[in-house]
């Protein structure tokens, strides 16, 4: 029984990372909880990991607001190059 639930810190923190995206199986959640019973370091990692997720979410929200566009000069240049190629292809 315990063999089935015994995982290394590397495995525990991998599950912990996956859980931040809600993509972890029920069995893995049990394995993780079991690991936390005797590993305080991974417990600390887990709590800090949730905080890091909050920070990443701030960053994600920020990125969503940005729209990237080419400048007018870049478009003019691109148009010119495309036209040259069209003439060559014709």
């Amino acid at each position: 029984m315990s063999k089935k639930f015994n995982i290394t810190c590397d495995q525990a923190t991998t599950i912990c990372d996956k859980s931040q995206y809600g993509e972890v199986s029920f069995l893995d959640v049990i394995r993780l909880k079991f690991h936390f019973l005797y590993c305080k370091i991974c417990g600390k990692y887990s709590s800090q990991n949730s905080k890091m997720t909050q920070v990443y979410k701030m960053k994600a929200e920020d990125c969503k607001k940005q729209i990237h566009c080419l400048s007018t000069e870049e478009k003019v240049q691109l148009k010119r190059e495309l036209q040259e190629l069209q003439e060559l292809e014709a």
Partner: protein
Amino acid sequence: MSETFKKHTLNPDKWIDNYADYLFNYAVTRVNNSDTAKDLVQETFFAGLKSAKNFEGKAAERTWLVAILKRKIIDHYRKINSNKGKAEVRMSFYDDGDKEGNWIEERVPQSWQNEADKMIESTELKSTIEQCIDKLPEKYAIVFRMKTIQEFETEEICKELNITASNLWVIIHRARTQLRKCMEDNWFNN
């Protein structure tokens, strides 16, 4: 009963006005570098022009161009992948000897100081995260950004980057472990 399909046509003279910004935005969110994105958009238009004779009109013009751009992005990722010898800051956090899979003693997570204050949204915080992400090996940074910052589905990333789901989770785990440490050193305990 006969079905009528609208046959799409290509109009390269209007490509830049109609699709340059859309394609550029699409590329820059995936490669996170405006110069690379610009090059990819240019290559996409050139490739589109060269293969215009093969356009069957089944897909809309933009969909067809995006498909070309996707292939260009995958080629770009593959090029990064095969970039051997490039200096990468890839730190190991777990023992691979007798205590395989356990934390390496000097790399265990440390307690963070003034945690609540440090969690307040600020330009400095965002710029420190950006710097930490930039320190990751490029492939880790791409996968991490797509999954965490751009919030793409796992399946979509795997398809676009031609990697397996387990491969993706290994990369995400390594990236997050490295980022946690970087933020600990440069933000929380700085």
